[in-house]
């Protein structure tokens, strides 16, 4: 493998861009394939499948066997609001291997004592979010109920194209939120991407149950997208 190819692979990984390293198992010749350059590649079908599933595998393409080494960014979860639901959500996220970051400017809420083993940022979302570079491999959840905190965060998440965007609040609260975001320039189609009321409808009552319903909705969205 060329050093230049390895450098390019590492650059894609650092930028959280999906990329596959396709290596001919007989000759060792290697090439990089991205979702954009997929069409026309001899191993296009196997590479597309690898992008969907996130799993590397050996495949037959053309005259011989190739190994498709797929690099898909790890899925992240960004939670706005160091509230009761977030305590359960952060713990459960670890079990399903979601890399979780919590943001809450209220320092009384965002304490390491309440959130051990979680990346915690006690800052306003418009300061904390941009350096995290949310993207389409990011699930985003707003849980504070406070428009001062949730609205600017939702604005960033919508623009970043996060694959899941959920916001806590009753239908009434959400209707008012949609009015504010529409006034800020978002179209109906864009705003339809916000899941609210948040979480699968399983009749969740306790904070931990609500966390289960949110996590289930995130997993469903993630897996369906990969199936599609």
């Amino acid at each position: 493998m060329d050093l230049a190819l390895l450098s390019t692979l590492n650059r894609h990984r650092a930028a959280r861009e999906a990329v596959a390293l396709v290596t001919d198992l007989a000759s060792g010749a290697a090439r990089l394939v991205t979702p954009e350059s997929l069409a026309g590649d001899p191993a296009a079908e196997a590479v597309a499948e690898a992008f969907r599933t996130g799993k590397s595998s050996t495949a037959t393409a053309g005259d011989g066997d190739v190994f498709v080494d797929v690099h898909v960014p790890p899925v992240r979860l960004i939670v706005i609001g160091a509230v009761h639901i977030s305590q359960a959500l952060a713990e459960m996220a670890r079990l399903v291997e979601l890399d979780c970051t919590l943001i809450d400017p209220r320092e009384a809420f965002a304490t390491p004592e309440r959130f051990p083993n979680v990346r915690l940022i006690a800052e306003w979302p418009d300061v904390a979010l941009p350096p995290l570079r949310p993207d389409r491999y990011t699930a985003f959840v707003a849980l504070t109920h406070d428009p001062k905190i949730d609205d600017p965060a939702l604005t960033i998440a919508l623009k970043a194209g996060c694959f899941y965007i959920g916001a806590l609040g009753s239908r009434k609260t959400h209707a008012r939120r949609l009015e504010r975001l529409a006034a800020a320039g978002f179209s109906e189609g864009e705003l339809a991407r916000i899941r609210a009321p948040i979480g699968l409808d399983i009749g969740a009552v306790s904070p931990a149950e609500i966390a289960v319903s949110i996590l289930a909705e995130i997993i469903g969205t993630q897996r369906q997208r990969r199936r599609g």
Partner: protein
Amino acid sequence: MSEHVAGGLATETEILATAEAWRKAGRGVALATVTETWGSAPRPVGSHLVIDGEGNFLGSVSGGCVEGAVVTEAIDVIASGVPKLLEFGVADETAWRVGLSCGGRIAVHVVPVN
């Protein structure tokens, strides 16, 4: 801003970055990748191990079962510049049970980084 970080290391990222850094530093480098597994292999397909010409390595293709053999083969690959496809399996099931816990078979592709 207060930030509290804990959790696992991004080892795959470290391994590939190390391969690049070692080569840029002028070392002979090979990259080994698990390309197939059968049975209960300890490391999944796509796991990497980077090796330099002196036998230094980082990463894992089997959780310790066959790393020694892969490193030896990788030194050959670095010297010859020719990739190798290696297979490791259960030759003696009893010995395997005693010595190694994995009990699976794996294929490992070793390529030089030029």
